[in-house]
């Protein structure tokens, strides 16, 4: 083919330089900061100093203090737990609901098509706006979600329970009709994950719809002729065939969930009582809002980088081993 060896490098170089400057530089700089005592309140003293008589390194200024501080900081440990649970709930819900949506909307038909068109809509809603709109709709006084949950779930369940309770067998406590969704530690985290699910389940469904479409229809036909019912076909045929895609999507969503930040700011503000302070949110608080401690913020973000690097390695191996 074409011979000039330098041509691709000329083409790649500009983009590569910009990527290196905007990713490698900050990664190195944040690592360097993380070993320092570095507050925004006063100019930092860095260990490496370039003076008139060459480069001088003051080793006494470097330490792992920020890292040991992190692991003894109950609020950081809390943010790890919050992030873990947020990730587990949002990934599980997004993938399961996404799969459900994909299987339902896959076929032709007017409602199917309408639903399929709608799948792209949450992508247009920015995470920040998503957070605000959910916060509004969950309001205990005038929120539409609050109304729907109360009238479609709580009231019918309570009606059923009071009938059961009327029988002199057992006494089951009724569900509360006045839950302040974002004021309750469990519900706030759950609803945060639900807002994330609202944004992602449709997109994940789109991914699955594409994957389902590429499966040969004859496979399903054969299963039907062999007498398999819908559930059997789903669990024995569809799921195993989708397995590679499900794994990739799950890993990808896990990575996005671990990095989640925007909605915490606009939906819960980390509350109530730090119940929704994810790692990113806590780092932002410590680095830019409260302590202005850049060294500590850098160290904590590096812990997140390590976690994400492991996830990224898993993701890449999943993608590469697919074929």
């Amino acid at each position, binding site marked *: 083919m074409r011979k000039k060896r330098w041509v*691709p490098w000329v083409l790649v170089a*500009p983009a590569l330089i910009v*990527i290196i400057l905007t990713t490698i530089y900050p990664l190195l700089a944040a690592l360097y900061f993380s070993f320092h005592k570095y507050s925004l309140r006063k100019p930092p003293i860095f260990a490496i100093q370039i003076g008139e008589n060459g480069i001088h390194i003051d080793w006494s200024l470097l330490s792992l203090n920020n890292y040991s501080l992190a692991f003894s900081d109950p609020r950081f440990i809390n943010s790890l737990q919050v992030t873990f649970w947020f990730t587990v709930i949002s990934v599980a819900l997004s993938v399961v609901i996404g799969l459900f949506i994909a299987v*339902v909307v896959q076929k032709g038909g007017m409602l199917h098509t309408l639903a399929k068109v709608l799948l792209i809509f949450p992508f*247009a*809603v920015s995470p920040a706006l998503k957070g605000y709109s959910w916060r509004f709709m969950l309001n205990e006084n005038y929120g539409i979600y609050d109304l729907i949950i109360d009238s479609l779930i709580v009231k019918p369940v309570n009606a059923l329970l009071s009938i059961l309770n009327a029988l002199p067998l057992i006494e089951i406590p009724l569900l509360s009709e006045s839950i302040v969704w974002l004021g309750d530690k469990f519900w706030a985290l759950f609803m945060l994950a639900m807002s994330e699910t609202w944004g992602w389940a449709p997109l994940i469904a789109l991914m699955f719809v594409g994957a389902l479409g590429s499966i040969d229809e004859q496979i399903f036909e054969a299963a039907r002729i062999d007498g398999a019912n819908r559930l059997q076909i789903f669990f024995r045929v569809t799921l195993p065939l989708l397995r590679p895609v499900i794994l990739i999507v799950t890993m*990808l969503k896990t*990575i996005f969930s671990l990095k989640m930040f925007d909605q915490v700011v606009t939906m819960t503000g980390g509350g109530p009582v730090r119940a929704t302070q994810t790692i990113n949110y806590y780092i932002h608080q410590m680095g830019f809002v409260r302590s202005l401690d850049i060294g500590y913020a850098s160290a904590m973000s590096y812990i997140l980088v390590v976690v*994400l690097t492991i996830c990224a390695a898993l*993701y890449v191996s999943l993608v590469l081993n697919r074929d």
Partner: protein
Amino acid sequence: MTAKATVQRKPDFRHQSLKALETLALLLIIAFIALPIVWLAITAIKPQEKAYSTSLVFTPTLENFEIIFSDTSVIINEGTERERGEVGRDMLPNVVNSVVVSGATILIAIPLATLAAYAFSRYQFLGNRALLIWILTTQFIPAIVVAIPFFTLFRTVEVFGKPLLGSQLGLIIVNMSIVLPYAIWMIKGFVDALPGEIEEAAYVDGCNDFQILFFISLPLIRPGVLVASVFAFIMSWNEFLFALIIGREMRTMQVALMTTSGARGIMWEQMAAAGLVVMIPIFFLAMFIRKNVVDGLTMGAVK
């Protein structure tokens, strides 16, 4: 005869109830996806006194849009009983910031990405595959790690006498870190799909590499480049963390959403109106690239 009829009715009934179940599921899915968007749109055109209820009986109004776009110092409806939100929000500069930052981001990122994507697709060079995968993994770097050093750097760097921190240029620079990798992967997908024969023929006819790239390949992948541009525009338009930390007082619309809160909490009717302004252009753009969003988000990993 009777036996046959009962045999037939049973699966028929099952079929019917399955159909009904499916329709119910579809309606639930549609409601689940559409409700937050519809509710936001309804709230945006509600008069203030109705915004804080689930009532659907109201006279639609554009008052909320008027408030968010009118000058901060102008008092609307002076002398009425309204206490909340009499003051304009002056969000026009925020819209301009969003447009300028997102527009400039793609104007810089897309040409760079196109050249790189073309090279990755059409040339074998040392380490090209490893490099491509490395670019893929840069999307997993948490944005906060990128934001911290750029925050401290931009505090001290001045361009034309203005610090980069809190400037449009500063935000455009950090946006590159998220937009470029996606754009490269997306455009590479389009170049990959293009048959190479035309280029080969041009090469045999004596065109050099750059003539082929600019006069033959680029015109052919233009639709793909457009799709990638739209995707990149949406990404930087919806970006929040950089806008908050690096953009600072130069608020993009995403950050300006936060300014709808006042002494008594968030003024939801204004937030909804501002939300619609943020959302509607992206709606049309998203519809336009509907078929490519999945490829973009997953960088082609799910096909």
